């Protein structure tokens, strides 16, 4: 079943098309890779889906609903949550608090009960706390739960970024370069974690990533875009054999080897 669909979406920056009449379908429960040379429009695509940018034309349909032009928090409420290319966390908060913030959409705590600190409110807080713990455990971050996020090593920060996104109970995760700056061991662990997220919770995952080996290992389907246009689509082995794709990469100055 098609869960997310982009229909002829274009986004211009001062006359230059970052993406141009882009069509994209994402199936429920798949892990799909979005690749392309630098400046191909991958992050712009994410920004358009999550409502951080409003497309100049075209529609974004999520689960049959037109979500074009919704604001980011509304898109998140519908179930699309993203991570960022540069590590984005709440730096001064501990890892645990970061995840607690991520749990926002499931929190349902009213203003009056929070002020009065009633028993039912305390039960809710405890419940949230347990959920946060579970998520930290899932990412093997329990040891650093009380560590401020800004003090964590880069690899753990990336993991925490995904943990925050997962806490928001998404139906679909958009991961922007989740493996950048990780060592090979961390990359393997993250690939396994992303697969587990999909397998256990049925969450669709869209990945933008430059590490080709990892993309080939992780994704079931890959869409290649260049200059904001889709140039190829298919299973990893088809993409590797695709002449156009090879040309796009060779023709551009990219570190994707």
């Amino acid at each position, binding site marked *: 079943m098609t869960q997310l669909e982009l229909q002829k979406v274009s986004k211009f920056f001062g006359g230059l098309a970052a993406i141009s009449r882009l069509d994209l379908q994402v199936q429920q429960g798949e892990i799909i890779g979005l690749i392309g040379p630098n400046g191909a429009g991958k992050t712009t695509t994410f920004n358009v889906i999550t409502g951080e940018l409003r497309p100049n034309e075209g529609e974004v349909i999520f689960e049959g609903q037109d979500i074009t032009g919704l604001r980011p928090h509304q898109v998140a409420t519908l179930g699309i949550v993203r991570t960022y290319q540069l590590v984005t966390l709440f730096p001064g908060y501990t890892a645990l608090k970061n995840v607690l913030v991520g749990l926002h959409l499931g929190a349902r705590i009213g203003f009056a009960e929070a002020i009065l600190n009633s028993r039912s409110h305390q039960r809710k807080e405890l419940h949230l706390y347990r959920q946060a713990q579970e998520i930290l455990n899932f990412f093997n971050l329990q040891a650093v739960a009380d560590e401020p996020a800004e003090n964590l*090593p880069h690899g753990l920060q990336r993991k925490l970024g995904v943990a925050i996104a997962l806490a928001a109970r998404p139906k679909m995760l958009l991961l922007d370069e989740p493996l950048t700056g990780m060592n090979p061991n961390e990359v393997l662990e993250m690939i396994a974690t992303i697969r587990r997220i999909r397998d*256990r919770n049925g969450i669709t995952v869209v990945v933008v990533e430059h590490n080709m080996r990892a993309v080939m290992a992780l994704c079931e389907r890959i869409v290649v875009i260049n200059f904001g246009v889709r140039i190829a689509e298919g299973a990893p082995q088809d993409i590797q054999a695709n002449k156009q794709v090879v040309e796009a990469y060779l023709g551009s100055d990219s570190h994707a080897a």
Partner: protein
Amino acid sequence: MTRVRPDPDRQGKFLGEMKAQQKSRLYFLGLFVLLGLVPLVLRSEYYLHVLIAMFYHVIYATTYRFILRTGQFHFGAHAFVGIGAYASVLLVMRAGWSFWLAMPAAGLIAAFFAVLIGYPTLRLKGIYFAIITWGFGDTLRFIYMRFKEPFGGPLGIFAIPGPNPITIPGLITIDFSQKTHFYFLALALMIVTLYILHRMEQSRFGLIFGAIREGDRLARAVGINIMNYKVLAFAVCSGLGAMAGSFYAHYTYYISPLDFSVLLTIYLAIYTVVGGQERYAGVIVGTVVLMLAGEVFAGYSHYQLLMYSGFLIVILLFLPGGLISLPGLLTRVGSRAEEKEGEKFRNDPA
């Protein structure tokens, strides 16, 4: 989600923290009792008056600081205090309401105005917000001055009745004929306000306000409606400030447009920065210290403002954390070495 057994130690710690939070109620009650004993010892009307003024200024300043902490450069605290004062006085004197109804109603009216102003303007950079709130305050002042009916014009409103008497049959009658009665009312208002602000900061709402400050983009991406949170803080704090304004009107029996000029907001900004805005206690310290110091110049308002603003400049340059950071600063000098050790673990994301 996988069921992983939570670490029992850690959960114990969390439960302990929650217990401690529950206990905080007792601390506030204790503070109330402690300050409630003061009139037994202190018989001087003058000192009681200083304390009463301090109490409602603490309300103004702590609510003002909460709005600042949501990242908005608020420059119109005087507008909302004024709305509270005028609304409650008019409800009592014109509509014949009881003070006990008019005061919360005044708070609601101010909160309503805060929502009205807040939605279109809070999404903008702080400076625009500063201009609009200052302009709003001065527009209101103009309206009070211009329309003698019902606002009393430049001379203001005289002979405002005090709060209606409360009688607990057979036990006590509080008729606000004595300073101590006002003292307890101001104290109760302050403690309730402080408790509400404390809970706002300690609860999930504080967590979200902090998250918005730490990273608004990410906050939005996990589904937080930043506008709603900012408007909520703005409305609640403005409403609480307005209730203190209502108290002020019925305590002093007289209000005029001059009481609600931008100088009030300037004073609050100074209390906040001098005390230290990082922590909630800082503002209280700032308000208490400066108001006590200001008593020296009581009646010479230019010297008072001179001292306050001079204080502000010195603190900004030499003690950016405010007075509240002073004890921590002194103890930290010894442990500089440890801090350096900690730096090593810091990872540069670039």
